[in-house]
Protein backbone atom coordinates (compact mmCIF):
# COMPACT_ATOMS: atom_id res chain seq x y z
CA UNK A 1 0.00 0.00 0.00
CA UNK A 2 2.86 2.35 0.72
CA UNK A 3 4.69 3.42 -2.39
CA UNK A 4 8.16 3.39 -0.89
CA UNK A 5 11.13 1.06 -0.62
CA UNK A 6 10.71 -0.10 2.98
CA UNK A 7 10.25 -3.85 2.73
CA UNK A 8 8.72 -5.67 5.67
CA UNK A 9 8.67 -9.39 6.27
CA UNK A 10 5.64 -11.10 4.80
CA UNK A 11 3.14 -11.64 7.58
CA UNK A 12 2.41 -15.08 6.12
CA UNK A 13 5.97 -16.08 7.08
CA UNK A 14 5.48 -15.25 10.75
CA UNK A 15 4.58 -18.40 12.72
CA UNK A 16 2.08 -16.64 14.98
CA UNK A 17 0.14 -15.20 12.04
CA UNK A 18 0.23 -18.53 10.24
CA UNK A 19 -1.14 -20.34 13.30
CA UNK A 20 -3.89 -17.77 13.78
CA UNK A 21 -4.84 -17.97 10.13
CA UNK A 22 -4.96 -21.77 10.20
CA UNK A 23 -7.25 -21.78 13.22
CA UNK A 24 -9.57 -19.17 11.65
CA UNK A 25 -9.74 -21.08 8.39
CA UNK A 26 -10.35 -24.34 10.23
CA UNK A 27 -13.19 -22.73 12.18
CA UNK A 28 -14.65 -21.39 8.93
CA UNK A 29 -14.60 -24.74 7.16
CA UNK A 30 -15.99 -26.40 10.28
CA UNK A 31 -18.83 -23.90 10.57
CA UNK A 32 -19.86 -24.41 6.94
CA UNK A 33 -20.23 -28.14 6.84
CA UNK A 34 -18.47 -29.45 3.72
CA UNK A 35 -18.96 -33.13 4.59
CA UNK A 36 -21.78 -33.68 2.11
CA UNK A 37 -19.91 -32.17 -0.81
CA UNK A 38 -17.40 -33.66 -3.21
CA UNK A 39 -14.68 -33.22 -0.53
CA UNK A 40 -16.50 -35.62 1.78
CA UNK A 41 -16.70 -38.22 -0.97
CA UNK A 42 -13.02 -37.73 -1.66
CA UNK A 43 -12.16 -38.43 1.96
CA UNK A 44 -14.54 -41.36 2.33
CA UNK A 45 -11.64 -43.89 2.72
CA UNK A 46 -10.80 -42.12 5.99
CA UNK A 47 -14.19 -41.09 7.32
CA UNK A 48 -16.42 -43.75 5.80
CA UNK A 49 -19.83 -42.78 4.47
CA UNK A 50 -19.91 -38.95 4.56
CA UNK A 51 -23.58 -38.91 5.62
CA UNK A 52 -22.89 -40.98 8.73
CA UNK A 53 -19.44 -39.66 9.61
CA UNK A 54 -20.82 -37.10 12.06
CA UNK A 55 -18.54 -34.89 14.14
CA UNK A 56 -15.38 -36.84 13.30
CA UNK A 57 -16.01 -36.62 9.56
CA UNK A 58 -16.76 -32.92 9.76
CA UNK A 59 -13.56 -32.30 11.68
CA UNK A 60 -11.41 -34.35 9.28
CA UNK A 61 -12.88 -32.68 6.21
CA UNK A 62 -12.46 -29.16 7.58
CA UNK A 63 -8.93 -30.00 8.81
CA UNK A 64 -7.83 -31.28 5.40
CA UNK A 65 -9.45 -28.33 3.63
CA UNK A 66 -7.78 -25.79 5.90
CA UNK A 67 -4.37 -27.46 5.50
CA UNK A 68 -4.77 -27.33 1.69
CA UNK A 69 -5.87 -23.71 1.85
CA UNK A 70 -3.01 -22.49 4.07
CA UNK A 71 -0.37 -24.52 2.22
CA UNK A 72 -1.61 -23.03 -1.02
CA UNK A 73 -1.28 -19.52 0.39
CA UNK A 74 2.17 -20.26 1.74
CA UNK A 75 3.41 -21.64 -1.57
CA UNK A 76 2.05 -18.71 -3.53
CA UNK A 77 3.70 -16.27 -1.12
CA UNK A 78 7.14 -17.42 -2.25
CA UNK A 79 6.43 -16.55 -5.90
CA UNK A 80 7.07 -13.20 -7.52
CA UNK A 81 4.29 -10.62 -7.44
CA UNK A 82 3.16 -11.03 -11.06
CA UNK A 83 3.13 -14.81 -10.77
CA UNK A 84 1.20 -14.53 -7.50
CA UNK A 85 -1.47 -12.44 -9.14
CA UNK A 86 -1.65 -14.83 -12.08
CA UNK A 87 -1.96 -17.94 -9.91
CA UNK A 88 -4.63 -16.41 -7.69
CA UNK A 89 -6.65 -15.36 -10.74
CA UNK A 90 -6.43 -18.84 -12.22
CA UNK A 91 -7.39 -20.45 -8.92
CA UNK A 92 -10.38 -18.16 -8.39
CA UNK A 93 -11.49 -18.76 -11.96
CA UNK A 94 -11.36 -22.51 -11.48
CA UNK A 95 -13.26 -22.17 -8.22
CA UNK A 96 -15.93 -20.26 -10.12
CA UNK A 97 -16.02 -22.98 -12.77
CA UNK A 98 -16.30 -25.64 -10.08
CA UNK A 99 -19.12 -23.65 -8.52
CA UNK A 100 -20.97 -23.52 -11.86
CA UNK A 101 -20.18 -27.16 -12.52
CA UNK A 102 -21.65 -28.20 -9.18
CA UNK A 103 -25.08 -26.93 -10.35
CA UNK A 104 -25.45 -30.28 -12.07
CA UNK A 105 -26.05 -28.65 -15.42
CA UNK A 106 -26.01 -29.96 -18.92
CA UNK A 107 -23.19 -27.67 -20.02
CA UNK A 108 -22.82 -29.42 -23.36
CA UNK A 109 -26.24 -27.91 -24.19
CA UNK A 110 -24.53 -24.58 -24.80
CA UNK A 111 -22.51 -25.97 -27.68
CA UNK A 112 -24.98 -28.37 -29.31
CA UNK A 113 -27.14 -27.66 -32.32
CA UNK A 114 -26.39 -26.13 -35.67
CA UNK A 115 -25.90 -23.21 -35.14
CA UNK A 116 -24.82 -23.83 -31.55
CA UNK A 117 -26.74 -22.08 -28.78
CA UNK A 118 -23.83 -19.87 -27.82
CA UNK A 119 -23.39 -18.75 -31.43
CA UNK A 120 -27.12 -18.08 -31.66
CA UNK A 121 -26.82 -15.83 -28.64
CA UNK A 122 -23.78 -14.02 -29.96
CA UNK A 123 -25.12 -13.62 -33.50
CA UNK A 124 -28.62 -12.52 -32.51
CA UNK A 125 -28.09 -10.85 -29.13
CA UNK A 126 -24.58 -9.51 -28.76
CA UNK A 127 -24.78 -6.99 -31.58
CA UNK A 128 -28.00 -5.46 -30.23
CA UNK A 129 -26.53 -5.21 -26.74
CA UNK A 130 -23.41 -3.46 -28.02
CA UNK A 131 -25.40 -1.25 -30.36
CA UNK A 132 -27.83 -0.12 -27.63
CA UNK A 133 -25.02 0.49 -25.13
CA UNK A 134 -22.84 2.39 -27.58
CA UNK A 135 -25.61 4.72 -28.74
CA UNK A 136 -26.76 5.30 -25.16
CA UNK A 137 -23.21 6.03 -24.01
CA UNK A 138 -22.78 8.63 -26.77
CA UNK A 139 -26.07 10.36 -25.97
CA UNK A 140 -25.47 10.19 -22.21
CA UNK A 141 -22.08 11.87 -22.65
CA UNK A 142 -23.64 14.69 -24.64
CA UNK A 143 -26.38 15.12 -22.02
CA UNK A 144 -23.78 15.08 -19.27
CA UNK A 145 -21.71 17.90 -20.78
CA UNK A 146 -24.76 20.11 -21.24
CA UNK A 147 -26.10 19.14 -17.81
CA UNK A 148 -22.82 19.87 -16.07
CA UNK A 149 -22.52 23.31 -17.66
CA UNK A 150 -26.12 24.05 -16.73
CA UNK A 151 -25.55 22.98 -13.15
CA UNK A 152 -22.54 25.25 -12.90
CA UNK A 153 -24.19 28.25 -14.50
CA UNK A 154 -25.69 31.26 -12.75
CA UNK A 155 -28.82 31.01 -14.89
CA UNK A 156 -31.69 30.08 -12.61
CA UNK A 157 -33.66 28.26 -15.28
CA UNK A 158 -30.71 26.23 -16.48
CA UNK A 159 -29.71 25.27 -12.96
CA UNK A 160 -33.26 24.40 -11.96
CA UNK A 161 -33.87 22.26 -15.03
CA UNK A 162 -30.54 20.46 -14.73
CA UNK A 163 -30.85 19.79 -11.02
CA UNK A 164 -34.46 18.62 -11.40
CA UNK A 165 -33.35 16.31 -14.19
CA UNK A 166 -30.49 14.76 -12.22
CA UNK A 167 -32.65 14.44 -9.13
CA UNK A 168 -35.50 12.74 -11.00
CA UNK A 169 -33.47 10.36 -13.11
CA UNK A 170 -31.08 9.40 -10.35
CA UNK A 171 -34.02 8.94 -8.03
CA UNK A 172 -36.04 6.47 -10.11
CA UNK A 173 -35.09 2.85 -10.69
CA UNK A 174 -33.90 2.32 -14.26
CA UNK A 175 -36.42 -0.45 -14.86
CA UNK A 176 -39.22 1.95 -13.92
CA UNK A 177 -37.84 4.59 -16.28
CA UNK A 178 -37.83 2.06 -19.10
CA UNK A 179 -41.50 1.24 -18.48
CA UNK A 180 -42.44 4.91 -18.04
CA UNK A 181 -40.86 5.93 -21.32
CA UNK A 182 -42.13 2.91 -23.26
CA UNK A 183 -45.68 2.98 -21.97
CA UNK A 184 -46.05 6.61 -20.90
CA UNK A 185 -44.84 8.59 -23.91
CA UNK A 186 -47.37 7.05 -26.35
CA UNK A 187 -50.14 8.33 -24.07
CA UNK A 188 -48.91 11.82 -24.95
CA UNK A 189 -49.04 10.96 -28.62
CA UNK A 190 -45.34 10.29 -29.07
CA UNK A 191 -45.05 6.77 -30.38
CA UNK A 192 -41.61 5.35 -29.90
CA UNK A 193 -40.58 1.76 -30.48
CA UNK A 194 -38.92 -0.60 -28.06
CA UNK A 195 -35.30 0.04 -29.02
CA UNK A 196 -35.54 3.87 -29.01
CA UNK A 197 -37.39 3.68 -25.66
CA UNK A 198 -34.63 1.55 -24.21
CA UNK A 199 -31.93 3.85 -25.54
CA UNK A 200 -33.79 6.92 -24.23
CA UNK A 201 -34.14 5.43 -20.74
CA UNK A 202 -30.51 4.33 -20.58
CA UNK A 203 -29.18 7.66 -21.87
CA UNK A 204 -31.34 9.76 -19.57
CA UNK A 205 -30.51 7.68 -16.50
CA UNK A 206 -26.78 7.50 -17.13
CA UNK A 207 -26.74 11.08 -18.42
CA UNK A 208 -27.93 12.12 -14.95
CA UNK A 209 -25.17 10.21 -13.16
CA UNK A 210 -22.55 11.44 -15.61
CA UNK A 211 -23.75 15.05 -15.25
CA UNK A 212 -22.68 14.86 -11.62
CA UNK A 213 -19.33 13.30 -12.55
CA UNK A 214 -18.65 15.98 -15.16
CA UNK A 215 -19.75 18.74 -12.79
CA UNK A 216 -17.42 17.49 -10.09
CA UNK A 217 -14.58 17.19 -12.60
CA UNK A 218 -15.04 20.74 -13.84
CA UNK A 219 -15.42 22.09 -10.30
CA UNK A 220 -12.21 20.44 -9.20
CA UNK A 221 -10.21 22.90 -11.35
CA UNK A 222 -9.27 25.82 -9.10
CA UNK A 223 -11.30 28.99 -9.51
CA UNK A 224 -8.10 30.89 -10.21
CA UNK A 225 -7.82 29.29 -13.62
CA UNK A 226 -11.17 30.75 -14.65
CA UNK A 227 -10.26 34.15 -13.25
CA UNK A 228 -6.86 34.17 -14.94
CA UNK A 229 -8.36 33.17 -18.29
CA UNK A 230 -10.99 35.89 -18.02
CA UNK A 231 -8.34 38.40 -17.13
CA UNK A 232 -6.58 37.44 -20.35
CA UNK A 233 -9.79 38.12 -22.27
CA UNK A 234 -10.82 34.57 -23.23
CA UNK A 235 -14.47 33.88 -23.92
CA UNK A 236 -16.45 31.24 -21.98
CA UNK A 237 -16.46 28.54 -24.68
CA UNK A 238 -12.75 28.89 -25.30
CA UNK A 239 -11.88 28.71 -21.59
CA UNK A 240 -13.96 25.57 -21.21
CA UNK A 241 -12.57 23.84 -24.28
CA UNK A 242 -8.92 24.82 -24.10
CA UNK A 243 -8.21 25.35 -20.42
CA UNK A 244 -10.71 23.73 -18.07
CA UNK A 245 -11.80 20.52 -19.86
CA UNK A 246 -8.28 19.32 -20.76
CA UNK A 247 -7.42 19.47 -17.06
CA UNK A 248 -10.64 17.94 -15.78
CA UNK A 249 -10.76 15.06 -18.26
CA UNK A 250 -8.15 12.98 -16.40
CA UNK A 251 -10.37 13.35 -13.32
CA UNK A 252 -13.56 12.57 -15.25
CA UNK A 253 -12.32 9.51 -17.17
CA UNK A 254 -12.06 6.84 -14.41
CA UNK A 255 -15.58 7.27 -13.00
CA UNK A 256 -17.00 7.66 -16.51
CA UNK A 257 -15.43 4.35 -17.49
CA UNK A 258 -17.21 2.77 -14.55
CA UNK A 259 -20.49 4.24 -15.80
CA UNK A 260 -19.89 2.73 -19.25
CA UNK A 261 -19.34 -0.68 -17.74
CA UNK A 262 -22.41 -0.33 -15.54
CA UNK A 263 -24.49 0.76 -18.51
CA UNK A 264 -23.40 -2.22 -20.60
CA UNK A 265 -24.74 -4.48 -17.90
CA UNK A 266 -27.87 -2.44 -17.26
CA UNK A 267 -28.73 -2.65 -20.95
CA UNK A 268 -30.00 -6.12 -20.01
CA UNK A 269 -33.01 -4.41 -18.39
CA UNK A 270 -34.42 -3.43 -21.79
CA UNK A 271 -35.08 -7.13 -22.39
CA UNK A 272 -38.48 -6.54 -20.74
CA UNK A 273 -39.50 -4.63 -23.86
CA UNK A 274 -38.91 -7.73 -25.98
CA UNK A 275 -35.73 -6.49 -27.61
CA UNK A 276 -33.67 -9.42 -28.79
CA UNK A 277 -30.50 -8.59 -26.90
CA UNK A 278 -28.22 -10.86 -24.87
CA UNK A 279 -30.35 -11.15 -21.76
CA UNK A 280 -33.54 -11.71 -23.74
CA UNK A 281 -31.92 -14.43 -25.83
CA UNK A 282 -30.48 -16.06 -22.70
CA UNK A 283 -33.89 -16.20 -21.08
CA UNK A 284 -35.77 -17.43 -24.12
CA UNK A 285 -33.41 -19.82 -25.89
CA UNK A 286 -32.98 -22.05 -22.86
CA UNK A 287 -36.65 -22.02 -21.92
CA UNK A 288 -37.72 -24.20 -24.85
CA UNK A 289 -35.66 -27.13 -23.61
CA UNK A 290 -35.89 -26.11 -19.93
CA UNK A 291 -32.15 -25.38 -19.79
CA UNK A 292 -32.47 -21.88 -18.39
CA UNK A 293 -29.47 -21.79 -16.11
CA UNK A 294 -27.09 -22.97 -18.81
CA UNK A 295 -27.98 -20.06 -21.06
CA UNK A 296 -27.94 -17.57 -18.19
CA UNK A 297 -24.42 -18.72 -17.31
CA UNK A 298 -23.40 -18.28 -20.95
CA UNK A 299 -24.78 -14.76 -20.95
CA UNK A 300 -22.91 -14.09 -17.70
CA UNK A 301 -19.66 -15.14 -19.35
CA UNK A 302 -20.29 -12.96 -22.41
CA UNK A 303 -21.11 -9.91 -20.27
CA UNK A 304 -18.03 -10.54 -18.20
CA UNK A 305 -15.81 -10.78 -21.29
CA UNK A 306 -17.29 -7.54 -22.61
CA UNK A 307 -16.64 -5.68 -19.36
CA UNK A 308 -13.07 -7.00 -19.23
CA UNK A 309 -12.50 -5.53 -22.68
CA UNK A 310 -14.02 -2.22 -21.55
CA UNK A 311 -11.83 -2.24 -18.43
CA UNK A 312 -8.75 -2.72 -20.58
CA UNK A 313 -9.74 0.18 -22.81
CA UNK A 314 -10.39 2.32 -19.75
CA UNK A 315 -6.96 1.48 -18.31
CA UNK A 316 -5.35 2.49 -21.63
CA UNK A 317 -7.14 5.83 -21.72
CA UNK A 318 -6.22 6.50 -18.11
CA UNK A 319 -2.56 5.76 -18.81
CA UNK A 320 -2.61 8.10 -21.77
CA UNK A 321 -3.97 11.00 -19.73
CA UNK A 322 -1.59 10.31 -16.88
CA UNK A 323 1.34 10.56 -19.28
CA UNK A 324 0.06 13.89 -20.51
CA UNK A 325 -0.35 15.20 -17.01
Amino acid sequence: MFVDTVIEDKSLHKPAFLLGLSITVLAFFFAFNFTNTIFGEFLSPVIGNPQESGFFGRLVVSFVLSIIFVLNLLLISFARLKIQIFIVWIELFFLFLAFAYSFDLELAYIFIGEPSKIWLMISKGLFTTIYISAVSIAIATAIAIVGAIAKLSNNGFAYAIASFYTSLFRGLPLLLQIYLIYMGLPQLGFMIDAIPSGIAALSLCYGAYMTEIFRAGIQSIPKGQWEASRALGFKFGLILRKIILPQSIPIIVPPTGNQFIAMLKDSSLVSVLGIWELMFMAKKIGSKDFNNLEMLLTAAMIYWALTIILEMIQARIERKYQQKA
Partner: protein
Amino acid sequence: MSIKLGFTKSSIAFAVALLSLNMTVQAGAVYDYIKSNNELMIATDANWAPYSYINDAGEMEGFDVDVGREIAKRMGVEARFITPSWDIITSGNWNMRWDVSVGSMTPTETRSEVLNFPAVYYYTPAGFAVHTDSPITTLAGLNGKNVCTTAASTWEMYLEGSLDMIDAPAFTYKVTPGTITSLADGHTCLDDTRLGAGVRNDGIIDSIPMIQGAIEDGYPIRFLGDPAFFEPLSVATDKGNDDPELDAEIARIIAAMKKDYTLTMMSMKWFKNADGSSNDYTIAF
Protein backbone atom coordinates in the same frame (compact mmCIF):
# COMPACT_ATOMS: atom_id res chain seq x y z
CA MET B 1 -50.94 42.85 -14.51
CA SER B 2 -50.29 41.06 -17.70
CA ILE B 3 -47.83 38.24 -17.87
CA LYS B 4 -45.81 37.90 -20.98
CA LEU B 5 -44.93 34.36 -21.78
CA GLY B 6 -41.47 33.75 -23.10
CA PHE B 7 -42.81 31.19 -25.54
CA THR B 8 -44.30 32.49 -28.73
CA LYS B 9 -47.83 31.60 -29.65
CA SER B 10 -46.58 29.81 -32.73
CA SER B 11 -44.49 27.37 -30.72
CA ILE B 12 -47.51 26.41 -28.63
CA ALA B 13 -49.58 26.04 -31.78
CA PHE B 14 -46.84 23.86 -33.21
CA ALA B 15 -46.82 21.60 -30.14
CA VAL B 16 -50.60 21.26 -30.25
CA ALA B 17 -50.45 20.49 -33.95
CA LEU B 18 -47.79 17.85 -33.34
CA LEU B 19 -49.94 16.15 -30.72
CA SER B 20 -53.10 16.23 -32.79
CA LEU B 21 -51.19 14.98 -35.81
CA ASN B 22 -50.17 11.91 -33.87
CA MET B 23 -53.72 11.44 -32.65
CA THR B 24 -55.15 11.46 -36.14
CA VAL B 25 -52.61 8.90 -37.31
CA GLN B 26 -53.62 6.65 -34.44
CA ALA B 27 -57.36 6.87 -34.79
CA GLY B 28 -58.83 3.68 -36.30
CA ALA B 29 -58.13 2.21 -39.70
CA VAL B 30 -55.64 -0.33 -38.36
CA TYR B 31 -56.71 -2.74 -41.06
CA ASP B 32 -56.02 -0.18 -43.80
CA TYR B 33 -52.61 0.39 -42.26
CA ILE B 34 -51.85 -3.34 -42.30
CA LYS B 35 -52.91 -3.58 -45.91
CA SER B 36 -50.98 -0.54 -47.07
CA ASN B 37 -47.92 -1.62 -45.10
CA ASN B 38 -48.32 -5.20 -46.38
CA GLU B 39 -47.36 -6.43 -42.93
CA LEU B 40 -49.25 -7.84 -39.94
CA MET B 41 -47.36 -7.14 -36.72
CA ILE B 42 -48.10 -9.95 -34.29
CA ALA B 43 -47.21 -9.77 -30.61
CA THR B 44 -46.51 -13.04 -28.89
CA ASP B 45 -44.50 -14.11 -25.88
CA ALA B 46 -41.36 -16.03 -26.88
CA ASN B 47 -41.27 -18.07 -23.73
CA TRP B 48 -43.92 -20.71 -24.18
CA ALA B 49 -43.01 -23.90 -25.95
CA PRO B 50 -44.97 -25.38 -27.67
CA TYR B 51 -47.11 -22.25 -28.21
CA SER B 52 -44.45 -19.80 -29.26
CA TYR B 53 -40.73 -19.96 -28.67
CA ILE B 54 -37.36 -19.38 -30.28
CA ASN B 55 -36.22 -22.53 -32.06
CA ASP B 56 -32.70 -23.87 -32.57
CA ALA B 57 -32.22 -21.69 -35.63
CA GLY B 58 -33.09 -18.59 -33.61
CA GLU B 59 -36.50 -18.10 -35.21
CA MET B 60 -40.02 -17.96 -33.82
CA GLU B 61 -41.88 -21.25 -33.90
CA GLY B 62 -44.90 -22.92 -32.32
CA PHE B 63 -48.67 -23.27 -32.47
CA ASP B 64 -49.41 -19.57 -31.99
CA VAL B 65 -46.76 -18.66 -34.55
CA ASP B 66 -48.32 -21.02 -37.10
CA VAL B 67 -51.78 -19.56 -36.43
CA GLY B 68 -50.41 -16.02 -36.72
CA ARG B 69 -48.68 -16.81 -40.03
CA GLU B 70 -51.88 -18.37 -41.38
CA ILE B 71 -53.95 -15.31 -40.41
CA ALA B 72 -51.46 -13.03 -42.17
CA LYS B 73 -51.42 -15.32 -45.19
CA ARG B 74 -55.20 -15.26 -45.48
CA MET B 75 -55.15 -11.48 -45.16
CA GLY B 76 -52.67 -11.45 -48.02
CA VAL B 77 -49.88 -9.75 -46.07
CA GLU B 78 -46.55 -10.70 -44.50
CA ALA B 79 -46.38 -11.75 -40.85
CA ARG B 80 -43.89 -10.12 -38.48
CA PHE B 81 -43.51 -11.19 -34.86
CA ILE B 82 -42.48 -9.05 -31.94
CA THR B 83 -41.94 -10.35 -28.45
CA PRO B 84 -42.83 -7.90 -25.66
CA SER B 85 -43.22 -9.32 -22.17
CA TRP B 86 -46.66 -10.73 -21.35
CA ASP B 87 -47.71 -7.99 -18.93
CA ILE B 88 -47.02 -5.32 -21.58
CA ILE B 89 -49.25 -7.14 -24.07
CA THR B 90 -52.12 -7.62 -21.62
CA SER B 91 -52.03 -4.04 -20.36
CA GLY B 92 -53.36 -2.77 -23.72
CA ASN B 93 -52.66 0.68 -25.21
CA TRP B 94 -50.46 -0.79 -27.89
CA ASN B 95 -50.48 2.46 -29.88
CA MET B 96 -50.03 0.50 -33.09
CA ARG B 97 -46.67 -0.87 -32.03
CA TRP B 98 -48.23 -4.14 -33.12
CA ASP B 99 -51.59 -4.94 -34.67
CA VAL B 100 -52.78 -8.15 -33.04
CA SER B 101 -51.81 -10.54 -30.28
CA VAL B 102 -51.86 -14.18 -31.33
CA GLY B 103 -50.49 -15.34 -28.03
CA SER B 104 -53.03 -17.67 -26.43
CA MET B 105 -54.76 -14.96 -24.48
CA THR B 106 -57.84 -15.83 -22.47
CA PRO B 107 -60.64 -13.27 -22.80
CA THR B 108 -61.49 -11.94 -19.35
CA GLU B 109 -63.75 -9.10 -18.21
CA THR B 110 -60.75 -7.19 -16.88
CA ARG B 111 -58.76 -7.54 -20.07
CA SER B 112 -61.76 -6.66 -22.23
CA GLU B 113 -61.65 -3.16 -20.75
CA VAL B 114 -58.52 -2.49 -22.82
CA LEU B 115 -58.58 -5.24 -25.45
CA ASN B 116 -61.01 -6.69 -27.98
CA PHE B 117 -61.29 -10.43 -28.47
CA PRO B 118 -62.55 -10.97 -32.01
CA ALA B 119 -62.11 -14.77 -32.20
CA VAL B 120 -61.39 -17.70 -29.88
CA TYR B 121 -59.18 -20.11 -31.80
CA TYR B 122 -58.65 -22.94 -29.31
CA TYR B 123 -59.02 -24.09 -25.70
CA THR B 124 -56.30 -25.29 -23.42
CA PRO B 125 -56.49 -27.13 -20.12
CA ALA B 126 -54.78 -25.66 -17.07
CA GLY B 127 -53.60 -27.96 -14.33
CA PHE B 128 -51.63 -28.20 -11.12
CA ALA B 129 -48.33 -29.98 -10.67
CA VAL B 130 -46.12 -30.77 -7.69
CA HIS B 131 -42.64 -32.19 -7.11
CA THR B 132 -42.55 -35.98 -7.46
CA ASP B 133 -41.48 -36.28 -3.79
CA SER B 134 -44.31 -34.06 -2.61
CA PRO B 135 -46.59 -35.56 0.05
CA ILE B 136 -49.54 -33.76 -1.55
CA THR B 137 -51.81 -36.15 -3.44
CA THR B 138 -55.05 -34.24 -3.97
CA LEU B 139 -55.91 -30.72 -5.12
CA ALA B 140 -57.33 -30.01 -1.66
CA GLY B 141 -53.86 -30.72 -0.29
CA LEU B 142 -52.65 -27.48 -1.86
CA ASN B 143 -55.08 -25.39 0.20
CA GLY B 144 -53.14 -22.97 2.37
CA LYS B 145 -49.90 -23.86 0.63
CA ASN B 146 -47.54 -21.77 -1.53
CA VAL B 147 -48.46 -22.03 -5.22
CA CYS B 148 -46.34 -20.46 -7.95
CA THR B 149 -47.52 -19.07 -11.29
CA THR B 150 -46.98 -16.42 -13.97
CA ALA B 151 -47.83 -12.83 -13.09
CA ALA B 152 -50.87 -11.33 -14.87
CA SER B 153 -52.00 -14.78 -16.06
CA THR B 154 -55.39 -16.47 -15.88
CA TRP B 155 -53.77 -19.04 -13.58
CA GLU B 156 -52.95 -16.27 -11.13
CA MET B 157 -56.57 -15.06 -11.32
CA TYR B 158 -57.75 -18.61 -10.70
CA LEU B 159 -55.61 -18.83 -7.56
CA GLU B 160 -56.95 -15.48 -6.40
CA GLY B 161 -60.51 -16.65 -7.06
CA SER B 162 -61.04 -13.74 -9.45
CA LEU B 163 -61.05 -15.49 -12.81
CA ASP B 164 -63.60 -13.65 -14.94
CA MET B 165 -63.30 -15.50 -18.25
CA ILE B 166 -65.75 -14.66 -21.02
CA ASP B 167 -67.60 -17.50 -22.79
CA ALA B 168 -65.60 -20.12 -20.90
CA PRO B 169 -66.58 -23.68 -20.03
CA ALA B 170 -67.90 -23.90 -16.45
CA PHE B 171 -65.36 -24.45 -13.69
CA THR B 172 -65.02 -24.35 -9.90
CA TYR B 173 -62.22 -23.08 -7.70
CA LYS B 174 -60.64 -26.22 -6.32
CA VAL B 175 -57.62 -24.71 -4.60
CA THR B 176 -57.29 -21.80 -2.16
CA PRO B 177 -53.56 -21.30 -1.69
CA GLY B 178 -52.12 -19.64 1.39
CA THR B 179 -49.47 -17.80 -0.61
CA ILE B 180 -49.40 -17.05 -4.33
CA THR B 181 -45.92 -16.61 -5.75
CA SER B 182 -46.34 -14.66 -8.99
CA LEU B 183 -43.25 -14.47 -11.18
CA ALA B 184 -42.85 -12.44 -14.36
CA ASP B 185 -41.40 -15.53 -16.00
CA GLY B 186 -43.51 -18.59 -15.30
CA HIS B 187 -40.58 -20.81 -16.20
CA THR B 188 -38.88 -19.85 -12.98
CA CYS B 189 -41.75 -21.53 -11.12
CA LEU B 190 -40.85 -24.84 -12.73
CA ASP B 191 -37.19 -24.35 -11.83
CA ASP B 192 -38.19 -23.52 -8.26
CA THR B 193 -40.33 -26.65 -8.03
CA ARG B 194 -37.40 -28.70 -9.29
CA LEU B 195 -35.42 -27.72 -6.17
CA GLY B 196 -37.67 -29.93 -4.08
CA ALA B 197 -41.13 -30.17 -2.55
CA GLY B 198 -41.83 -27.13 -0.38
CA VAL B 199 -38.42 -25.51 -0.94
CA ARG B 200 -39.58 -22.45 -2.85
CA ASN B 201 -43.14 -23.48 -3.56
CA ASP B 202 -45.43 -26.41 -2.86
CA GLY B 203 -46.91 -26.58 -6.32
CA ILE B 204 -47.55 -24.77 -9.56
CA ILE B 205 -50.44 -24.09 -11.88
CA ASP B 206 -49.72 -23.79 -15.58
CA SER B 207 -51.03 -24.93 -18.93
CA ILE B 208 -50.99 -28.71 -19.19
CA PRO B 209 -48.98 -28.89 -22.47
CA MET B 210 -46.33 -26.72 -20.82
CA ILE B 211 -46.07 -28.96 -17.75
CA GLN B 212 -46.08 -31.98 -20.06
CA GLY B 213 -43.06 -30.52 -21.85
CA ALA B 214 -41.21 -30.04 -18.58
CA ILE B 215 -41.92 -33.62 -17.50
CA GLU B 216 -40.69 -34.95 -20.83
CA ASP B 217 -37.55 -32.90 -20.32
CA GLY B 218 -36.87 -34.74 -17.07
CA TYR B 219 -38.22 -32.32 -14.49
CA PRO B 220 -39.06 -34.19 -11.26
CA ILE B 221 -42.70 -33.08 -11.24
CA ARG B 222 -46.04 -34.80 -11.62
CA PHE B 223 -49.58 -33.70 -12.42
CA LEU B 224 -51.96 -33.24 -9.51
CA GLY B 225 -55.58 -34.16 -10.07
CA ASP B 226 -57.64 -33.44 -13.17
CA PRO B 227 -57.36 -30.26 -15.27
CA ALA B 228 -58.47 -27.32 -13.11
CA PHE B 229 -60.23 -25.47 -15.90
CA PHE B 230 -60.34 -25.11 -19.66
CA GLU B 231 -59.63 -21.65 -20.92
CA PRO B 232 -60.70 -20.26 -24.27
CA LEU B 233 -57.81 -18.59 -26.06
CA SER B 234 -58.36 -15.76 -28.41
CA VAL B 235 -56.74 -13.39 -30.82
CA ALA B 236 -56.66 -9.94 -29.23
CA THR B 237 -56.74 -6.45 -30.72
CA ASP B 238 -56.28 -3.07 -29.08
CA LYS B 239 -59.39 -1.31 -27.81
CA GLY B 240 -57.49 1.98 -27.86
CA ASN B 241 -57.30 1.69 -31.66
CA ASP B 242 -60.70 0.14 -32.18
CA ASP B 243 -61.08 -1.16 -35.73
CA PRO B 244 -64.26 -3.19 -36.31
CA GLU B 245 -63.13 -3.99 -39.84
CA LEU B 246 -59.95 -5.70 -38.55
CA ASP B 247 -61.91 -7.59 -35.87
CA ALA B 248 -64.47 -8.79 -38.44
CA GLU B 249 -61.70 -9.93 -40.77
CA ILE B 250 -59.97 -11.89 -37.98
CA ALA B 251 -63.27 -13.48 -36.92
CA ARG B 252 -63.93 -14.48 -40.53
CA ILE B 253 -60.44 -15.98 -40.98
CA ILE B 254 -60.54 -17.96 -37.71
CA ALA B 255 -64.01 -19.31 -38.56
CA ALA B 256 -62.71 -20.40 -41.97
CA MET B 257 -59.63 -22.00 -40.38
CA LYS B 258 -61.91 -23.97 -38.06
CA LYS B 259 -64.16 -25.02 -40.89
CA ASP B 260 -61.41 -26.38 -43.15
CA TYR B 261 -59.68 -28.06 -40.15
CA THR B 262 -56.49 -26.00 -40.51
CA LEU B 263 -56.62 -25.23 -36.80
CA THR B 264 -57.22 -28.88 -35.92
CA MET B 265 -54.20 -29.91 -37.99
CA MET B 266 -52.06 -27.32 -36.23
CA SER B 267 -53.26 -28.42 -32.81
CA MET B 268 -52.52 -32.07 -33.65
CA LYS B 269 -49.07 -31.05 -34.83
CA TRP B 270 -48.05 -29.13 -31.72
CA PHE B 271 -49.92 -30.70 -28.81
CA LYS B 272 -48.72 -34.25 -28.30
CA ASN B 273 -49.22 -36.46 -25.28
CA ALA B 274 -46.51 -38.55 -23.64
CA ASP B 275 -47.71 -41.63 -25.56
CA GLY B 276 -47.34 -39.82 -28.89
CA SER B 277 -51.06 -39.26 -29.45
CA SER B 278 -52.22 -35.81 -30.48
CA ASN B 279 -54.75 -33.41 -28.99
CA ASP B 280 -57.36 -31.41 -30.81
CA TYR B 281 -57.78 -28.40 -28.55
CA THR B 282 -59.95 -26.48 -31.00
CA ILE B 283 -63.06 -27.77 -29.23
CA ALA B 284 -63.83 -27.29 -25.54
CA PHE B 285 -64.24 -30.33 -23.33
